[in-house]
């Protein structure tokens, strides 16, 4: 108020009206986004079960989590998943977006089909793939029919740790790549075509056009999508929980599943919220990169 910049000449502050407009949204935002963070923090300093508060625990829950090998193992599994899935979730959708941008006949059909798995529920895709991957399922049968596996051979896609990870990463790529693909496609369509035409006249082949025009133009978007994908993959839970249930022998149990099991199966809500909070801080650090990038991007947009 006391600064009173010129653009306020027409109107002063309308705090009352603004409050009326803001309240319906903010009530939910505060109760279901902000309160859980602080309440969780409060719970994490107590011994707490589903029956309620059992007493103050200080830093005990945090110290316990830090010494808990299963906590670190689950974090490791999540990290491993991020490392395996991120390159695929960048390369596959990027390649598909290049195909869609190549003006083939039937590209609307192709786009629809490439994107379709993305709209299915995690419950649906999980149970479809459980049946495709089980020992007498579609994949093994197919591999036998085309002769890659012998008639009596079978691969245990979900029961052998290495194969289980491969399966989970491939399922996730199949399911979620469409989102990144559309983002890439939008980026590709923003590149002015005259740049390509000029390069073609100068004798640049398709590969050179990709390296010298497309990739530099897509740099920002590639960074953004990588950050978004890393964060999304860090939160992996549903498909692993449903397809392998974290098995075999907890070898694929992710951190979110471990937090869930600690809270609701072991009935240790205090410990569970302490783990949540530690994971939360790790994700915030990761997201901070996204936020910085995002801010820069939207400044340019305006």
């Amino acid at each position, binding site marked *: 108020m006391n600064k009173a910049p010129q653009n306020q000449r027409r*109107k002063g502050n309308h705090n009352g009206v603004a409050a009326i407009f*803001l309240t319906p949204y903010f009530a939910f935002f505060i*109760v279901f986004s902000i309160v859980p963070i602080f309440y969780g923090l409060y719970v994490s300093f107590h011994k707490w079960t589903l029956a309620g508060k059992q007493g103050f625990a200080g830093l005990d829950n945090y110290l316990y989590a830090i010494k808990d090998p299963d906590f670190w193992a689950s974090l490791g599994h999540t990290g491993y998943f991020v490392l395996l899935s991120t390159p695929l979730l960048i390369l596959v959708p990027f390649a598909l977006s290049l195909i869609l941008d190549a003006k083939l006949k039937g590209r609307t059909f192709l786009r629809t089909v490439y994107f379709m798995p993305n709209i299915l529920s995690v419950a649906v895709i999980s149970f479809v793939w459980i049946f495709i991957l089980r020992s007498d399922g579609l994949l093994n049968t197919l591999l036998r029919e085309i002769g890659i596996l012998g008639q009596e051979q079978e691969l245990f896609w979900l029961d052998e740790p290495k194969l289980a990870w491969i399966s989970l990463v491939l399922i996730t790529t199949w399911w979620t790549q469409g989102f990144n693909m559309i983002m890439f496609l939008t980026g590709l369509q923003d590149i002015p075509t005259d740049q390509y035409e000029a390069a073609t006249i100068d004798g640049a082949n398709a590969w050179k056009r990709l390296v010298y025009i497309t990739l530099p133009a897509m740099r920002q978007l590639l960074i*953004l999508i990588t950050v978004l994908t890393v964060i999304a993959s860090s939160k992996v839970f549903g498909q692993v929980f449903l397809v392998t249930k974290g098995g075999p022998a907890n070898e694929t149990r992710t951190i979110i599943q471990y937090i869930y099991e600690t809270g609701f199966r072991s009935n240790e*809500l205090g410990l569970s919220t302490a783990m949540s909070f530690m994971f939360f801080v790790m994700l915030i650090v990761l997201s901070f990169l996204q936020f910085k990038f995002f801010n820069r991007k939207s400044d340019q947009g305006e």
Partner: protein
Amino acid sequence: MPEHASRKLSLPVLLLYIVAFSLAIICIVPILWMVVTSLKPEGSVIGEIGRRFLPPFTFENYQYIFESAPIVRWTMNSLFVSMVVPILSLINASLAAYALSKINFSYKKIVFWVILSGMMLPGEATIVSLYMVANGLDILDSYYALILPALAGPLGVVIIRQFYDGIPNELVDAAKIDGCGLFKTWWNIFLPLSKPVMAALFIFSFLGTWNDFLWPFLSIQTEELYTLPIGIPFFMSSYNQDETLPMTVNAYASVPIIIVFIFFQKYIVKGITFTGIKG
């Protein structure tokens, strides 16, 4: 013209077509497999793969799942929640966005900054405490649990505000001269103008709510309140060996949204563009 003709016939282009359509097959085969399996008589074994795609087909699996689980109820729950969440959250978000874009008030920057940082909050990481908050409010195991927490998402506010920023302030002034209050201006001018954004956000929110698994799975115990996604695992455990019945439930839960997707693709694509780039 000759350029065009040679492009059509060239080997690289032909290869590109082969690659493009092979990838399309990989994307769609699991979905087709789900649908054809649901149409096979109960207890079918795999045998020859090609045979799965040929008749005889039957709808008796569908009849069976309707008889053995309250699947009609689950469908209504899913539909109800997936309609109510987008409607309420779009109304709330556009009101907030209007204030953030067109009304002067104290601490506006801070308020917007808080919402924007809300986008960074990883909901999955605080799901245990959300459960406890919902428990404290006594809304667990009810429609409130399925609807109210979903209204807290900040994405809609940020995107709609961006859109409102593009609408000139002069329009608000002109409406004021014509005797429109702020609320009427929002309702008569801003809402109609933002139809394309709202449509994209609506479809997006609809699909997200329809498919949501983790939160309904945690918050709902009563079978009558299940949504379709959490009803599917329920079905699985009872019929583990047979492939046809679980695939029938899967197909049943998916076909409606596949149809929604095919008709409203344009908006879904737009929605993704908003979240990623323009957001």
